[in-house]
C-alpha cells in the first residue's frame, strides 16, 4: 500500500511535466493545426539557456523565467520564419499535409546541430533548487519532496494563469476565436497571424518549463543529444491525444493519467516496457476514444 502511494506520487509528478508538454503541443495544434515535432528540441534549447543563466547567476528563480522567455522567442521565431510562409504556400493543397511535419523535423535537426556547436561535449546542469529528499511520514520517507511540490506547484500555477488568459482576457478570446474560425475572426478584425505567433510563443514558454522541470526531476543534466527530450515530446503527444488534443484541461488530465499509468508499469511490470506501453496507450485511445477522454462526441475525427 505504501509502495502504491509512492508510485502514485511519482506518477503524478512525472505526469504533471508531461501535462506541460502536452499543453505546449495543444497550443500549437490549436493555433496552426500542426504538430510541432521540434517541440522537444525547443525545450532542450531553452533548458540550455536556463542552465547557462543558472551557471552565471546561481539562481534557479532567475533562470526559469529567462528560459521561458527564450522558449517563447525561439518558438515565435520558428512560427514566423518557417511555418507561416510554408502554410501560406501549401495552404490549399490538403495533399501536402506532411510538409509541415517534415519542416519541423528539419528544424529539430538544426536546433540539435546548433546546440552541439555551442555546447559540444559540455553538459548543462540544472540542480534542483530545493531539497529532493522525501518528507518523512510515520518514520518512512515518501516520494514527495519539496522539489516535487515545487514542480506540482509550478504546473498548477501555469495552468491557472493560462486558464485565466484564455477565459478572461481579450487575448484569450482572440486565441480561441482564431483557432476556431480563422476566416471569421479575420473579418471581425482579429489579426489572426499575430495571434498565431502569440499562441506559439506561449507554447514555447510552456515547453521550456517542461524541459527545465524534467531535467531537475530526472538526471539533473542535459546534453545536446539528450534522449529524454525525444521521450518528453512523445509522452507529451500521447498526453495531448488522451486529452483530445484540443483542450488544455484535457492535456493536464491526459498528462496525469499517462504519468500514473507509466509509473505503475515501471514499478510493477518492467522498466523497459514503459516506452512501448506509451505507444499502446496511444493506439488504444486513438481507436477507442479518438476525441479524447473528455472530448465531445462531435469533435474532430482522429
Amino acid at each position, binding site marked *: 500500500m505504501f509502495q502504491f502511494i509512492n508510485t502514485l506520487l511519482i506518477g503524478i509528478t512525472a505526469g504533471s511535466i508531461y501535462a506541460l508538454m502536452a499543453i505546449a503541443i495543444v497550443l500549437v*495544434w490549436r493555433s496552426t*493545426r*500542426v*504538430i510541432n*515535432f521540434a517541440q522537444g528540441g525547443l525545450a532542450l534549447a531553452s533548458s540550455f539557456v536556463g542552465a547557462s543563466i543558472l551557471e552565471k547567476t546561481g539562481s534557479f528563480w532567475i533562470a526559469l523565467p529567462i528560459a521561458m522567455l527564450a522558449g517563447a522567442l525561439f518558438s515565435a521565431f520558428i512560427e514566423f520564419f*518557417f511555418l507561416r*510562409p*510554408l502554410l501560406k*504556400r*501549401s495552404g490549399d493543397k490538403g*495533399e*501536402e*499535409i*506532411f*510538409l509541415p*511535419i*517534415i*519542416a519541423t*523535423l*528539419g*528544424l*529539430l*535537426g*538544426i536546433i*540539435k*546541430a*546548433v546546440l*552541439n*556547436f555551442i555546447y*559540444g*561535449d559540455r553538459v548543462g546542469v540544472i540542480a534542483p533548487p530545493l531539497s529532493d529528499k522525501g518528507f518523512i511520514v510515520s518514520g518512512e520517507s515518501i516520494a514527495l519532496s519539496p522539489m516535487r511540490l515545487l514542480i506540482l506547484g509550478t504546473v498548477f500555477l501555469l495552468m491557472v494563469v493560462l486558464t485565466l488568459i484564455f477565459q478572461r482576457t481579450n487575448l484569450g478570446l482572440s486565441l480561441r476565436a482564431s483557432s476556431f474560425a480563422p476566416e471569421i475572426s479575420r473579418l471581425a478584425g482579429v489579426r489572426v497571424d499575430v495571434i498565431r505567433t502569440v499562441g506559439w510563443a506561449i507554447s514555447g514558454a510552456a515547453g521550456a518549463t517542461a524541459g527545465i522541470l524534467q531535467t531537475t526531476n530526472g538526471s539533473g543534466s542535459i546534453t545536446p543529444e539528450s*534522449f529524454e527530450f*525525444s*521521450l518528453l*515530446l*512523445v509522452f507529451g*503527444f*500521447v498526453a495531448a*491525444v488522451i486529452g483530445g488534443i484540443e483542450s488544455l484541461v484535457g492535456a493536464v488530465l491526459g498528462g496525469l493519467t499517462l504519468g500514473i499509468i507509466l509509473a505503475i508499469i515501471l514499478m510493477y511490470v*518492467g*522498466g*523497459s*516496457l*514503459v*516506452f*512501448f*506501453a*506509451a*505507444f499502446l496507450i*496511444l*493506439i488504444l485511445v*486513438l*481507436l477507442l476514444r*479518438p476525441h479524447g477522454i473528455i472530448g465531445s462526441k462531435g469533435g474532430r*475525427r*482522429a
Partner: protein
Amino acid sequence: MELSEVKVVDVHKPQITNKHRFIGFALIALTVFILSNSVDEWRAFQGATVAVYVVAIASIILLTGYSGQISLGHGALLAVGAYSAAIAQINFQLPILLCFVVAVITTSLFGALLGAAAARLSGPYLAGTTLALAVGLPSIANQFSFLGGEQGISFDVGWPPLSFGEDFTQYKWFFWIATLAALISMWWVQNILRSRYGRTWRAVKTNEVAAELAGINIGRSKVLAFTVSSGIAGLAGALLAMTTNNVSPSVFPLALSFSLATGAVLSGVNTLGGVIIGSVALVAIPEIASLVADRWSGSESVATLLPDLIVSALLILTVFLAPKGPIEKLRSRHVK
C-alpha cells in the same frame, strides 16, 4: 487546370516499357559489379549501405508518396525485420535466404496489425503514433532475454562462397547481396505501383471521397499499402542487420527513423525513381561534411555537427523549394 497539366506531362514522357526497365536494371547491376571489383573495403561497405537505404526509402515512398500515409517510425519496422531474421537463424537454424523471407513475412504481419490502426488516423496523428512506435519498440529487447538486451543478438550471413575466389571480401559480398535485394524489391515495387493496387492507392491519396464513390474500399487499400511497405522495410532491416552483423536496440535509434524520412523527402516522396538520390545523399553527406570540416576548420565539433546541419538544412530547403522532390521539380521545369 489540373487535367491539362497531367496531359502535358504524359505527352512529353516517353513510354517506359518492361524492356527498358530491364535494360536499366541490368545496367545498374553491371555498374555495381564493376564498382565492387574496383573499390576498397570501406567503399564496398558504403555501397551496401546505399543499397539498404534504397530498400528502406522505397518502402517509405510507397507508403507516403503513393498511399498518402506518413510514417516517422520506419526504423521500428526495420527492427522487426532484423530481429525476426536473426531469431530465424539462431533459434531455428534456417538457411540465410529463408531468414530474409521470414523477415519480410513477419514484418508484413506486424505491418498489417499496425496498418489496421493507422488506416483510421490522419496525417499528424499517424506521424505522432509512428514516432511513438519508433521510440518504444526497440527498448522491448531489454525485457525479453531471447532478444539479447542491450548487447543484442548476432545475424551472420556467413563468408562468401569459396568459388568466388580467395580475395572476395566480406563487404563486397554484403554489397552484392544488398544490391541484388534492392534490385529485386525495386522491380517488385514498380510492378505493384503499376498494378490495380498502385492505382487504387493513388486514387485514395488524391481524393478519398471520389475513390470511395468509385467503389474502392479505403480502409482495406490503406492497410494493404501499410502491409506491403512493412514487408519491404523488414527486408531492409534484415539487410541492415547483415551489414552490422548484430541486432540490438542501438542499431535502430530514433535517428534512423528520422534519417529514412529525410532520405524519402530528399528523394521526392512522389517519385520512386528518386530513391537513389536520397540513399546516396544519406551516405555521402556525412563523408563530404567531414572532408570539408577537416580541410577548413579542423575542429572536432564542426566535424560532428556539420552532417546533421547539412541534412536538416537540405530537408527544409526541399520542403520550401521542391516540395515534390528534385526529380518532379526538374521535370516540371522541362515541360514548361
